[in-house]
């Protein structure tokens, strides 16, 4: 591929990683997807697809080397035994079919993996409890056991055995995972390692465990596989941890002879959003102030991440010697075909990662497959058979009217057009994107606009391919009569949702008395976006929502000079703990002097004041007092709080009146040539952008299926009763008597 005279040739120039050759500079670093070893089809199809899309190497997620490292309920891969090897092999084979290298990340979490399934205790340099919320929301929950030299030998042998199993599974690369405060990093990092024997104290002693482990693996696998280590070169807490200018570079220099490539990043696991930086706080290449020093300390190739989605930036970091290879996790999820698109010069077709970290949120909450806001097919490759770039041709010539060009409507229209249907997409706004147009104006969320931009570009290309298709923006809102008279065989209603203007909320399922956004001093988020109502000096945000709206609006108004208070029934931005936006969001709220009243509900709104109460103010004692009587005492914590403007971030409700009226007039469908009317996205039920996008995509894929309004069952990967996982095992119940 190289030497076509293109400026991008360097990205397609092969590079040696020890005994293996990486065919280009695109390296999918290990990242979780929710497949682990229990969903081998998911694992195979998701990773294999990236090989098809041009990635030079594709890694597993963190792959536990031994039952002593059990990260459940977060889903990770495991390479404990032959059963796991069998389940990982389809991934390897699929990757190899497309000429890419397959990598296995050898993971030993120490106390950062809670052992909830295996009930094991991990070994480490000292005894400490994890600073990471091993059980979500509960940092400090999980302890380890200090290893003596016997235990050290045993642990290193676990790594060796796992590396051999990885080799025998067919992996080309093994990566000893020492980033994110995992595995050998706990030995190098003086934050954890306070030993005084030959494995602690001096830098050389703290590095000993890692170096010995690499040596032992190399001795076992030889040149059968390329040996890589993933290393955090700065843990970001100064001299209490590893600093790039001290232990970081020294370790790179010391360990280089033992390995074939460096996979480097910064930070730890407790705040791994400093590595997988959300776009709210971090731009492309945000780690390079640290990473740029690595190549001066090693002659081995260096791969690093930084949410690389822009080919120009990739060229820059390679040409200026920051890295040799572009590492990517999130951009490879948003667009598994990014390398091919760059090679073909199709830059405008790249589905750019928006850095929302919703993918990560699914791993962080534990137990569920990941999703992607941009790429609705991520995680759906195997179970639904969805290819991100290829589509089943239209099965009929039934044309479709899509009302609403937000995430669900624009994605539905895009996929229908890709399939070859004639589609008319209609929206009242002048721009495709619906709600995303508003959200992307919130502080730090500008890159979320990439979600809209991708669909806008694709739809404008697709509409040119079919003269019968049409995108009509800036139109008056369609009535049921308009829809009935439109002449479409199928109608998709994607009219979105709105924030309750009367304070409907999940705690009472009723309005908040006095909450009325038609009054001058009460605003919904939509009214904030419109910018027509004046906002007073003292802003009170009444928050019943767990995601980004409250902290975002608080930031917006605080930066504009308002005094902002958030009264919140739950944690402010609670979900953002899962997207890794949490820590810096709380720092931002603190920095801007935003007052947070926690565990606080609102019982009444009046001009100039709101009545607030502690949600736990009704006493802990419950007793039966007869019908019509509350089982607890009356909440006596109510108090008035003065403010000039109230912003209601309570519940959302679907904009479903058009759909309801059309359903009510079902008898008129046939005479108007309408086969069916569907409702998708927020218009069906409010949800996050990723799920609205998915719903639009799903309907477009399934529109010829039976009952397309309702999801077609997918292929489930479940253990089959009566079948042993490992050879020689008896799957029957065997009492140990």
């Amino acid at each position, binding site marked *: 591929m190289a030497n076509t005279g293109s400026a991008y040739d360097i990205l397609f120039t092969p590079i040696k990683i020890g005994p293996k050759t990486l065919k280009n500079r695109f390296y999918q670093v290990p990242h979780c997807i929710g497949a682990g070893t229990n969903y081998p089809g998911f694992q195979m199809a998701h990773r294999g697809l990236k090989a098809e899309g041009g990635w030079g190497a594709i890694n597993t997620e963190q792959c536990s080397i031994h039952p002593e490292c059990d990260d459940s309920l977060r889903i990770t891969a495991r390479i404990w035994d032959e059963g796991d090897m069998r389940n990982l092999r389809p991934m390897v084979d699929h990757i190899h079919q497309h000429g890419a290298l397959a990598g296995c990340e050898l993971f030993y979490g120490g106390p950062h993996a809670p052992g909830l399934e295996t009930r094991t205790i991990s070994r480490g340099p000292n005894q400490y409890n994890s600073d990471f919320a091993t059980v979500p929301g509960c940092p400090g929950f999980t302890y380890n056991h200090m290893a003596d030299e016997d235990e050290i030998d045993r642990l290193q042998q676990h790594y060796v055995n796992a590396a051999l199993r990885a080799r025998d599974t067919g992996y080309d690369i093994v990566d000893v995972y020492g980033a994110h405060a995992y595995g050998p990093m706990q030995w190098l990092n003086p934050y954890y390692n306070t030993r005084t024997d030959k494995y602690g104290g001096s830098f050389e002693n703290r590095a000993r465990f890692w170096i010995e482990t690499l040596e032992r693996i190399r001795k076992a696998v030889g040149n059968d596989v390329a040996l890589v280590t993933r290393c955090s070169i700065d843990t970001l807490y100064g001299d209490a941890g590893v600093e790039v200018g001290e232990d970081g570079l020294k370790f790179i220099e010391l360990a280089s002879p033992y390995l074939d490539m460096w996979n480097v990043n910064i930070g730890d696991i407790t705040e791994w959003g400093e590595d997988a930086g959300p776009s709210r706080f971090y731009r492309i290449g945000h780690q390079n102030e640290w990473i740029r020093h690595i190549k001066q300390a090693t002659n081995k190739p260096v791969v690093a991440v930084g949410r690389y989605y822009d080919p120009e930036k990739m060229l820059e970091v390679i040409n200026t010697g920051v890295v040799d290879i572009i590492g990517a996790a999130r951009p490879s999820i948003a667009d598994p075909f990014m390398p091919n698109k760059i090679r073909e010069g199709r830059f405008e077709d790249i589905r750019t990662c928006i850095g929302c970290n919703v993918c990560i949120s699914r791993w962080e909450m534990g137990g569920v497959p990941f999703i992607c806001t941009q790429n609705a097919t991520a995680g759906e490759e195997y179970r639904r058979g969805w290819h991100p770039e290829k589509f089943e041709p239209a099965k009929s010539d039934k044309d479709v009217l899509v009302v609403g060009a937000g995430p669900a409507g624009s994605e539905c229209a895009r996929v229908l057009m890709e399939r070859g249907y004639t589609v*008319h997409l209609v929206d009242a706004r002048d721009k495709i994107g619906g709600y995303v147009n508003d959200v992307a104006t919130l502080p730090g969320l500008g890159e979320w606009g990439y979600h809209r931009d991708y669909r806008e570009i694709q739809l404008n290309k697709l509409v040119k391919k079919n003269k019968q298709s049409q995108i009509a923006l800036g*139109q008056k809102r369609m009535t049921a009569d308009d829809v009935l*008279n439109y002449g479409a065989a199928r109608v998709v209603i994607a009219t979105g949702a709105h924030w309750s203007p009367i304070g409907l909320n999940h705690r009472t399922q009723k309005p908040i008395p006095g909450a009325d956004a038609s009054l001058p001093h009460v605003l919904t988020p939509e009214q904030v976006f419109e910018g027509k109502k004046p906002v007073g000096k003292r802003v009170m945000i009444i928050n019943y929502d767990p995601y980004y709206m409250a902290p975002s609006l608080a930031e917006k108004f605080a930066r504009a000079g308002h005094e902002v208070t958030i009264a919140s029934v739950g944690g402010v931005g609670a979900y953002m703990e899962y997207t890794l936006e949490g820590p810096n969001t709380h720092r931002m709220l603190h920095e801007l002097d935003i007052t947070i009243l926690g565990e606080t509900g609102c019982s009444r709104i009046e001009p100039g004041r709101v009545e607030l109460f502690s949600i736990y103010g009704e006493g802990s004692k419950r007793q039966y007092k007869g019908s019509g009587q509350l089982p607890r005492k009356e909440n006596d914590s109510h108090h008035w709080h003065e403010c000039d403007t109230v912003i209601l971030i309570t519940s959302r409700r679907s904009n479903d009146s058009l759909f309801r009226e059309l359903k009510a007039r079902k008898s008129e469908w046939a005479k108007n040539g309408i086969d069916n009317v569907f409702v998708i996205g927020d218009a069906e039920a409010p949800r996050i952008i990723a799920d609205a996008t998915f719903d639009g995509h799903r309907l477009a894929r399934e529109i010829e299926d039976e009952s397309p309004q309702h999801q077609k069952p997918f292929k489930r990967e479940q253990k089959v009763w009566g079948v042993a996982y490992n050879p020689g095992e008896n799957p029957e119940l065997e009492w140990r008597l």
Partner: protein
Amino acid sequence: MKILVAVKQVAFLDDEFEMRDDGRDVDADFFEKDLNEFDHFSVEEAMLIKEAAGDAAEVVIAIIGDEDADDALRTALAKGADRGIRVWDEALADADGVAVARVLAKVVEREKPDMVFTGAQSADFGSAVTGMALAGLLGWPHTAVVCNLDYAPGAGTATIRRELEGGLEEIMTIRCPAVLSIQLGINQPRYASLRGIKQAKQKPVDELSLDDLGLSAAEVVPAARVRRMYAPERGKAELITGSAAEQAARLAEIIKELRGM
């Protein structure tokens, strides 16, 4: 009562394109064709008059072009116009605005409309001459770049507003029938519904030749001829790559070159 709207199928260039071998036009392989943007507004204006008159007015779309031009014609019909007329003859292949006006004049004689609309200009060549030439040939009044129109079907006059230089506006009365060149922004053009698109396929279109209109090829010889079409050389951009030192060296080289050192 009848309004004739003369429309054009215009060509858009792809991002990258090549010239024809004779160097007088872009190779048609690199065109995308569509209804002239201005004509969306003239068709809409006719449709608004028709609808205000309770559909008593007939809107006839006229286009000059080969079968390819049917797409543009049907686009206009899909918005609700009643019928179409497409005139074609190989002799019209290089027709300029004046030649097109000669053809349209014959169409007007045949149709006898109460009003003729054209777009203010075509998006591809922008000569803005067809409407004016047509009015000249017919001996009808003409107004260019109409921004607002007050006209009741069958009325003897229409009131027109035009925007002039320096933010001035001009209000004028014009005797009908007349030829009006309609400016962008006079209205908000509608999109066709799927029903409109389907119905447009069934609407009558008269396909006429020069013969049918009593014209000879000699009468539509263009008054002007394109000699050459080309993309003038422009300033070049260069992506400077390499190490910082290499980039700096290349930059210095370029500066020296530009300064003639």
